[in-house]
């Protein structure tokens, strides 16, 4: 848990007021609690919270955290160590009290002074951790502690309602009275208290009564933990109090959009220098598409400091670089952060006569935009939108190597603020399709009678995979990139086969597909006396397919990108062998969502196996899980097929 500091009229009062001592408020455990060895409400849990409490006062800045935990298994003992992060300049931790109660009722009070340890310090900010560990904890113990923290400048609580552990009883209380919410003397802190409860379907409500807020809950389940979940901000229950300038969501977003657009336009100001630059990039006869492409190519050539090195003020001064106040400065510096470059693209496109707009989205790897959370701090990265032939094209020039018309996956299906002909608005970027994110893999393999293989493989990547490796190339030298690529590939090849790097094609041209060529060798087939058995799906025989082991699902599924794999593998047979069987034709379709096709052909000399896998969704609700599970079960089974080669000539020694 943490509290956010806030400058308000309570500063002096809170600074001067001593923290009231913690009262001896530890609870007498019940006989049932003492003898409890397992919790039917949390089967298999290593610990459960019997009580969890936080009370906060805006006026006094006093935050009190209380917990009572039953340890049910060895792992749960670790909860005896408590870490309280705090900024010593703004907060102090007082009155730490704790005790351990054994199952027989024996009490062991916390007698060791908590340790105050530096966590991080720079010139402007310091964070410490106060750490203590409760004594003599054993399986069956109840751990109980209470900590008071005084925040000099008041507190706006942030309650993480869920934890990794089941909670029997949870109580959160915030007294916002006298917190200075409202208009101050100069009107610059027109502060309304806002409350954010997430996710929207969470079964919790906040009781509000004349400036006092309470959340009381029983039987709070542990926070979800499944593979391929969307960002936790959509899943974990929490309540956040914050200050805003209005009590109406509509008013807030209307005003925030206007402010955002005004500030964006201020940064986007197109001056003569930029008009000249844009005119030099395009020709008068260029189509809208040609102009958009040429400008895109030009800004991608600028130094993107997200991938190099952000210059300090001293460096900028020495390099005679301008302080970046608008996009003209970015252009003059020929360098900038990804966001600045994205906005520069918008400005240059406009200077070339195109309709172009800026958009700032929530990075989907971090969070999903939530309109009930009245804060523009949700927004992360800038992208560009350009209109070509009346159609809007979404571009990601801040991502250095993103091809024209492709968004980095963290910016696809992402919501944020955008400009438009009708003014600023909240909008969502389009999703990729499986055609955007594809990998075509071909291999030409020569088998010998012992099952050893030599050959080459070629992987042609587009979309997310190509962007990933190209961005790796920006941050590493080619030698390191080759090693990373091979390590990644070797982890997926059939056991016993390894790849060595040959070369990459198209690394420097982000509009082209990226092709990797590797050499392959090792033991692929398993010989028996009469046969040779070879994995039929070379690139997938060792693949780890998701979802096959889990029959049920409680959370939505976020697979980041759609995808397509197109494989074509030729196995040249050793002399003295004929094909006994090859992978069966597979045609598994999940209409509108995914398909798998496997087809094999063979002759006396070779077996050729083609595989197409396409998945055309990114996000799914848990209600679709049965279909998803069923599809992946069939996919996993089909990918395990073998090629059986029968020996036609006798072999020595057998």
């Amino acid at each position: 848990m943490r509290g956010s500091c806030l400058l308000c009229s309570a500063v002096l009062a809170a600074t001067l007021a001593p923290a009231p001592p913690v009262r001896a408020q530890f609870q007498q455990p019940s006989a049932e609690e003492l003898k409890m060895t397992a919790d039917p409400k949390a089967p298999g849990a290593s610990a459960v919270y019997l009580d969890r409490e936080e009370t906060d006062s805006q006026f006094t800045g006093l935050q009190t955290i209380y917990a009572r935990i039953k340890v049910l298994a060895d792992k749960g003992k670790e909860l005896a160590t408590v870490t309280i992060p705090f900024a010593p300049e703004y907060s102090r931790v007082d009155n730490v009290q704790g005790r351990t109660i054994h199952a027989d009722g024996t009490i062991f009070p916390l007698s060791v002074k908590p340790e105050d340890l530096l966590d991080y310090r720079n010139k402007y900010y310091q964070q410490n951790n106060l750490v203590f560990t409760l004594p003599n904890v054993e399986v069956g113990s109840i751990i109980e502690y209470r900590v008071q923290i005084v925040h000099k400048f008041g507190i706006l609580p942030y309650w993480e309602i869920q934890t990794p552990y089941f909670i029997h009883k949870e109580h959160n209380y915030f007294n916002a009275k006298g917190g200075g919410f409202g208009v101050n003397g100069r009107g610059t802190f027109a502060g309304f208290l806002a409350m954010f409860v997430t996710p929207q379907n969470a079964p919790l409500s906040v009781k509000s009564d004349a400036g006092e807020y309470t959340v009381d809950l029983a039987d709070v389940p542990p926070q979800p933990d499944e593979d391929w979940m969307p960002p936790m901000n959509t899943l974990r229950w929490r309540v956040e109090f914050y200050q805003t300038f209005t009590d109406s969501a509509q008013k807030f977003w209307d005003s925030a959009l206007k402010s955002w657009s005004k500030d964006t336009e201020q940064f986007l100001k197109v001056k003569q220098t930029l008009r000249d630059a844009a005119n030099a990039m395009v020709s008068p006869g260029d189509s809208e598409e040609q102009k958009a492409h040429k400008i895109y190519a030009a800004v991608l050539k600028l130094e993107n400091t997200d991938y190099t090195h952000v210059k300090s003020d001293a460096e900028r001064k020495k390099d005679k670089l301008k302080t970046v106040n608008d996009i003209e400065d970015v252009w003059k510096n020929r360098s900038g952060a990804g966001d600045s470059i994205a906005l520069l693209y918008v400005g240059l496109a406009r200077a070339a006569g195109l309709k172009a707009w800026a958009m700032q989205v929530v990075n989907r790897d971090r969070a999903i935009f939530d309109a009930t959370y009245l804060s523009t701090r949700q927004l992360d990265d800038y992208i560009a939108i350009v209109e070509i032939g009346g159609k809007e094209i979404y571009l990601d020039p801040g991502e250095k190597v993103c091809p024209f018309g492709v968004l980095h996956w963290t910016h696809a299906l992402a919501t944020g603020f955008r400009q438009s002909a009708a003014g600023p608005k909240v909008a969502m970027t389009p999703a990729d399709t499986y055609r955007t994110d594809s990998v075509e893999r071909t291999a030409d393999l020569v088998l010998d009678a012992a099952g050893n293989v030599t050959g080459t493989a070629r992987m042609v990547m587009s979309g997310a995979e190509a962007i990933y490796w190209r961005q790796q190339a920006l941050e590493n030298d080619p030698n390191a990139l080759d090693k990373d690529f091979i390590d990644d590939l070797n982890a997926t090849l059939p056991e016993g086969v390894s790849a060595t790097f040959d070369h990459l094609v198209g690394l420097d041209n982000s509009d082209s597909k990226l092709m990797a060529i590797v050499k392959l060798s090792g033991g692929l087939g398993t010989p028996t006396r009469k046969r040779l058995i070879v994995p039929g799906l070379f690139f997938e025989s060792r693949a780890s397919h998701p979802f096959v082991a889990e029959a049920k699902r409680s959370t939505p599924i976020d697979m980041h990108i759609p995808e397509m794999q197109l494989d074509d593998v030729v196995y040249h047979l050793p002399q003295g062998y004929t094909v006994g069987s090859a992978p069966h034709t597979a045609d598994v379709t999940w209409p509108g969502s995914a398909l798998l096709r496997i087809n094999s052909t063979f002759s006396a000399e070779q077996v050729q196996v083609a595989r197409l896998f396409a998945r055309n969704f990114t996000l799914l609700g848990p209600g679709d899980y049965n279909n998803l599970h069923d599809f992946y079960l069939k996919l996993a089974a089909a990918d395990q097929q073998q090629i059986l080669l029968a020996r036609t000539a006798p072999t020595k020694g057998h």
Partner: protein
Amino acid sequence: MKNPFVPRIEFAFALAAVFLAGVARPAHAGWFGKDDPLPSWALDAAKTPTPAYADHSSAVILFDEYVETIDAQGRAVEREREAIRILKPQGRHHDCSVSYDVDEKINSFREWTVTADGKTFQAKDTDFVDVGGGEEGIVPGIPVLLVTERTRIVHPPAEDVGATIYCESEEQIAPWNREKVWSIQSTIPIAHQALELDLPPGGHYADSWHQHPPVQPVEVAPDHWRWEIDNMHGLDLRDIHVHPAWRALAARMSIYWGADASTDKDAEWRALGQWTADLEAHRPDPTPEITAEAQKLVAGAPDFYAKLVAITEYIQNNIRYFVIERGIGGFQAHPAGEIYRNRYGDCKDKTTLLISMLQAVGIEAFYMPVDDRRGVVDANAPSLAGNHMITAIRLPADERDPRLMAVVAAKDGTRYLIFDPTDERTPVGNLPSYLQGGYGLLAAGPLSQVVALPVLDPAANGADESGTFALAADGTLTGQVDALYFGPEGGNFRSFLKFTDDKERREAWESFVAEDLPGVTLDSLRFVQPDALSKPLEFHFSLTEPRYAHNAGTLLLARTHVLGSAARLPEDKPRKVPINLGATGRWRERYDIALPPGYVVDETPDPVDLDTDFASYHAATTAKGNTLHYERVYTVRKVELPASRAEDFRKFESAVLDDEKGMAVLRKQ
């Protein structure tokens, strides 16, 4: 990405933050923002050309020089000057840092950068950060080892490819420290490096070398010695499989000063052991509560072994691993009474309480500093370089219980049982695999000495697994696996149980099984964990794998080795570093697969029989009626092989891998 500007509605908050932050006095750069000129040593270092052998490195250390100035009380002031040239984009992360604890002080720390085009910058206050240290435990977010030590890190300005970073620092070292471990090898090459030791008049020193021939120093002034080393290649183990720990392979020199410093290695080990024993003196003194507890534990114990089991298992089961180390607390344990009261501590604390409880029942035991990375402690290089503390328990002369396997004999013939109380799951008498084959310092006062830790017989470790399965005509495999894990292997699985709840356990086990059976569903999972650590841990689980076998016309192909892989293929190229076999042990597996009705066995894989000095492997598949029976025994006899045996090892492991992939061909009648 960072926003290029601060949106207006957040401006008030940003303003408040700036207001609250205040202005701090510059402490690193020149006063009033004026830079110090690049010092002459840096100008000299700048002339060093990038060596050819650094071509594939991300950066190269052109110059690294330590000067240790020792005062009359033996306290050191350390000055370091270092020049690093960034060669590749990923080399930007080679920053300079200085660590300091509560009893140490950084006197100065400055940094300059000279860019590829010759511009010079000096780091400002804002480029320095201090970070605390700590080690996360197995449970996310909960640390188990915290320290008061901090590290000051400089983020150099203009840190880009082609730039050279020059760092100069001076630090007053903790008063109790009498040893400098000079790491003469890094992950990147070092073109030129030196260490100077400036002793008070008549001062003594001794040096020892690990993975590097000794270098003779030059006496550059009276009692002032200088060692120099040129062209040290980087040690990069990234593409080398099954290698020993990096720290065990990296070259280093240890230098000690003070009256105890001795060039005689035995004498130096003795001095280090004496120092450890003195430091921990009286820490294990038993309190009345400890004495009472220990005596209660051993009451009725029929023999020496039973006494040991009672006390060691008490420590293993009841003392949590957690500590906050303050200054010398990195070496010195807490008093036994405190550890007993709180029931938590680190390796030194657990050893202390164990010594204390043993002492309370008349058994003598000693501290033994070690490293849990085999090969770091080097018998020929006396040093306190290590990361762990274990216990050496003195055995009575007539004690010959065969369950006490981890026994070493000191030079005087006294036998000691080696035990690691921090390993909460390996029973007394046995020894965790990570310690076997290494060295430890027996800190027994004047009898202190370095001892080789034993490599135990394979019978002391391993597993016995059996599976009974039924195969359906559609390829579905269902069945039950029963497994026993014992010795350190059993300890590992007990630790897995300790740090997981039911859900995590099931998920982890399912993932583990899915490595061999990708579509597996665990139908049940059960374990039996006897209280006595010496008894094997039992796992019982049943599973369904929908497509275990694959149709090929009228044939059905099924792998005979169902679960678990032992193969560790090394890379197929010349090898220079030893092969780390991990642990000795014996792993036995038996699988019976009932064939689908109407099918008979057409072919089975050939048996494999390998026997070498380091390992043996015997595997065979037989068909009995309508059942396919697979059985293998894999025995590892050594923990490490020299690099010269790489081809033998590769052949052996290739045969293991081939056997694990072996298929039976079933034919429909």
